């Protein structure tokens, strides 16, 4: 699959010149959700903690960055840092809730956290604008002294650059000891302990790092979408992210972005054909992914071998 990366990057850079502004904005949204999916893959695929709750730090980071954008700073980097630190802080606060849970219990607790945050977002009107949403965030400039990102193309390229940098950092870290340790925890936690590894601390760090990534993606959402509503962080988004991660091959952060792109494209395209049946289609895709993909991958491996 490695040979796909160069053409994919080229296509991603060229896209805003080939597509109309609306499609460009959609692509930017896919990038942002793909980054959240990468944080889901980090937890689910690499560390072995299946999560439906990454929408929570995503939302926390988004509202924090939006508040910053509305009231003080319109510098992209500041907003990114704000989103990442609020996402990380949110994860750190919820770590005691999740760090002893595994498997389905982890899934259910993170689901509950995600739902609580969406409910809070629709109630706390003074900060989030409630279900009406929050609008009017000005376009930022990436850094002090750089021009304002006032076109869809500029905002898309900004998102592409940020996602690219974050992904490279994550992939590099996962290739080193950190990745080994997390995969060791996923494979056999007791064996990790028997070798002296503090498993709880490792998983807590992974959870907080995933929170930082999701929070940073939240601040990117403010830039690319310039509008926030609780619906951006609902259960269907969480399910869609998990589906994207499963399709992308759970252990792969890069695959998670590709998987999310496929899922979003399939949903938008199919719901154009069958209006109002979005959730149904998503469910069908989920079942297909759970049943068909492992067999397909198995067959592919046999064909290749």
């Amino acid at each position, binding site marked *: 699959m490695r040979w796909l990366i160069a053409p994919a990057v080229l296509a991603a850079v060229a896209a805003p010149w080939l597509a109309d502004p609306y499609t460009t904005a959609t692509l930017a949204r896919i990038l942002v959700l793909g980054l959240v999916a990468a944080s889901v893959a980090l937890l689910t695929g690499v560390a072995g903690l299946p999560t439906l709750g990454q929408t929570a730090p995503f939302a926390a980071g988004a509202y924090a960055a939006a508040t910053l954008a509305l009231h003080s700073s319109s510098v992209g980097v500041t907003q990114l840092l704000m989103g990442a630190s609020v996402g990380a802080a949110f994860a750190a606060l919820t770590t005691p809730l999740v760090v002893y849970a595994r498997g389905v219990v982890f899934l259910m607790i993170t689901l509950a956290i995600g739902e609580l945050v969406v409910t809070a977002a629709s109630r706390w009107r003074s900060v989030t604008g409630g279900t009406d949403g929050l609008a009017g965030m000005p376009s930022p400039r990436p850094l002090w002294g750089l021009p304002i990102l006032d076109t869809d193309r500029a905002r898309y390229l900004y998102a592409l650059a940020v996602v690219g940098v974050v992904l490279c950092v994550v992939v590099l870290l996962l290739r080193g*000891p950190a990745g*080994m340790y997390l*995969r060791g925890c996923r*494979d*056999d936690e007791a064996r990790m*302990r*028997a*070798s002296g*590894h*503090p498993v709880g601390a490792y998983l807590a760090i992974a959870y907080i790092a995933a929170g930082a990534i999701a929070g940073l993606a939240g601040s990117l959402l403010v830039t690319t979408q310039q509008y926030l509503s609780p619906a951006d962080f609902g259960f269907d988004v969480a399910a869609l992210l998990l589906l994207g991660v499963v399709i992308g091959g759970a252990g792969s952060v890069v695959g998670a972005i590709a998987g999310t792109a496929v899922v979003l494209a399939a949903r938008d395209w199919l719901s154009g054909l069958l209006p109002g049946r979005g959730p149904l289609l998503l469910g069908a895709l989920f079942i297909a992914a759970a049943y068909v993909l492992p067999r397909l991958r198995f067959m592919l491996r046999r064909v290749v071998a």
Partner: protein
Amino acid sequence: MRALLAVDALSRRYGSLVALDRIDLRIGEGERHALIGPNGAGKTTLLDLVAGAARPDGGRIWVAGRDVTRLGPARRARLGVGRIHQRPAAWPSLSTLDNIAVAGARRCGGYRRTLPAARQLLSAHGLPDVTAAQLSHGQRRQLEIAMALAGRPRLLLLDEPAAGLSAVEFSQLSAVLRDLPRTVTVLLVEHRLDLVYALADRVTVLRDGQHVATGTPDEIRASSTVRTAYAEAVI
């Protein structure tokens, strides 16, 4: 000789079953101590308690003079307690080299610093550099031994390392255990009595969670109590 491992009145119950009943044990620094007894005697349970994988219902455990009874398995491993499990346990999705390096990392200053030693162990144990999931049973045993040694243990707990090995693999294992430096103290659970008698300085016999006898291999071989205790199960 200073006791590297001391166990006092150690007990463990599973429901109404008494898996270990107030066991005392002293193992000197550098000693090779074997633990034998029929299936269900409580040998694995004793290793679990020493490694911290299970909690005792009573009693205390000291390693190198330090009371570790309340420490978790990771803390004990960092103090130098290494272990080979009855069912070989590795991280299947990591390579054999990474398995060894990750296993040693916490006691050797991190993964990268452990890599050179891990490479040596890999070739010394004749292991291919593949994903651990691809290994045969005998190779997995070898891998687990290499993993345990990578952590430079002071106390090595071995749970039936010879089980399921071919004749060639068995003699390789005997050689590896024979050549361990005396800086490593060994507690060996094993059914193959030839290995036990060749290696052990002293032997402890357990049966149904009870201590039956402790002595030199010659004493144990000669003891009539041991023969009765062992009669149905092994001989």
